[in-house]
């Protein structure tokens, strides 16, 4: 599959199509192809071939991502950040440590902040998932935190950014008037390797201002 992506990418470069756009296309296409391989695999993983026991999970599930319903094939032990990035092509969610230690993968589940790397995709069935791609309004209006990050130049490399932004969205849903200390505490489960914390907190305070309409 990686072979396939590389070929497509080279070809597309000639045609002037963005590499990123093409990789996402390749991911979507291959997801459809490879999913059929999973269906009747006998050994482990799926309970489809066996007599249905109470609570056995099926691979084909419906997820509610950014307000849209998506039918996806998900192996039982896949984490949400993996499904978002590699099946749905929503690569805005980053994977840093993959161990619940850095926050790069933070997404909202029913409005609450969770580490996508440490959450089984199967456990968010029937719940509303919001990733960074879901923040912008239909008319292109940015979320106050996105706007604030632009205004304050909140991040350096920005690898940690979507996680910080998502967790800030959760904060502002709970508290539109946090102190800098409260914001720091709320964001303590997000690490920034560039140690840009000061500017990040300034962005959060600005986002709170925008949210309050100040």
């Amino acid at each position, binding site marked *: 599959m990686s072979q396939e992506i590389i070929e497509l990418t080279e070809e597309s470069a000639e045609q002037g199509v963005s590499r990123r756009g093409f990789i996402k296309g390749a991911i979507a296409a291959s997801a459809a192809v490879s999913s059929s391989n999973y269906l009747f695999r006998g050994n482990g993983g*799926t309970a489809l071939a066996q007599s249905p026991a109470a609570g056995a999970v099926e691979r084909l599930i419906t997820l509610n991502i950014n307000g849209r319903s998506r039918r996806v094939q998900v192996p039982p*032990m896949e984490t949400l950040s993996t499904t978002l990035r590699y099946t749905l092509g929503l690569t805005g969610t980053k994977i840093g440590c993959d161990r619940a230690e850095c926050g790069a993968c933070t997404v909202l589940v029913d409005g609450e*902040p969770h580490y996508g790397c440490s959450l089984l995709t199967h456990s968010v069935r029937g719940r509303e998932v919001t990733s960074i791609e879901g923040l912008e309004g239909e008319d292109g209006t940015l979320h106050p935190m996105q706007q604030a990050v632009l205004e304050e130049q909140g991040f350096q490399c920005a690898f940690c950014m979507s996680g910080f932004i998502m967790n800030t969205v959760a904060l502002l849903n709970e508290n539109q008037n946090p102190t800098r200390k409260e914001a720091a505490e709320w964001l303590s489960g997000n690490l920034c390797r560039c140690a840009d914390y000061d500017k990040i907190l300034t962005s959060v305070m600005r986002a709170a201002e925008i949210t309050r309409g100040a």
Partner: protein
Amino acid sequence: MAVIRDVIPQLELFQPSSADDALALLAEHGSDAWVYAGGLDTLDWFKDRVKRPRVVVDLGGIDSLREIRSTSDGIEIGAMATLISVINNPEVRSQFPALAYSAKSAASPQIRYQGTIGGNIAQDTRCWYYRDGWTCYRAGGNICYASPPTAMNREHCILGASRCVAVNPSDTAPTLVALEAEMVVRRGNSERVVAAEDFFVGPEIDIERMTVLEPGDLLMSIRVPSKWASARVYFEKVRDRDSWDFPLANVATAIRENGGNIEEARVVVNGVAPTPVRLTAVESAITGQPRNEQTAEQAGNVSIQGVAPLTHNGYKVNLMKNLVKRSIRDEPLA
């Protein structure tokens, strides 16, 4: 840190919607099954391929296990109640603020939204040799990699070691022991109720487990009796950095005073031994004494009798001494 693998190996996942269905699955699959709560301890083991159960029973769909309710004698917290729901529960906050505070001291906000109180008390030790898959005593082998003088044992225990020197890392556990909580455990159709201080198991009893839970067991709830409701209960945790980190040591002390003297006390430390430890010598030393600087000082001194630090964790001795002292002298934190 462990080598990061690509994906979790294929395991059979079940998401039952009732405790009875979960219990049936656990009975059927015995030691091949793994109970999955918030998954935050669990997923590390699976990603590193150190623990490889065949079947995973996810309790996430069992709503009844998430309830927190008042009973005729205190409150009963479902095993699947998240740490955040414990922290925000009005009953917990008013009657047992130290429990809310210790839950709030655990991990990071994202983890508290997902991690459960049951998982918090049943979590495994953080010893990195063991977690990295070294076949030590706790992993069924015949050596401890953390106890030799050259080992990395700064976070390990100063009390209660028996071959294994790993510590229990839970922040809610010592508070639950101080509050005389009880754990309700079911297995098939039978239910047993275990006092919190007997729930945790040291290596001298079973070196491969942290609690009494065995394959087939399901922790249903935690009962916190009203005995210590609104009493003076002090929790404090010390960690390497001021935001989220596991405790190097923590303390939970419940004290009832009468006529200016300490009438009854329960002093519990964690992060310093393989289980949360009730310091009964301290409790008897301070009972009948006035709660003041001198009594607190004496308590600190008694607390460290018999400690056995390793090469790199001697600092924990003073840490524990001062924590115990403060827990008696100072006003509870919130």
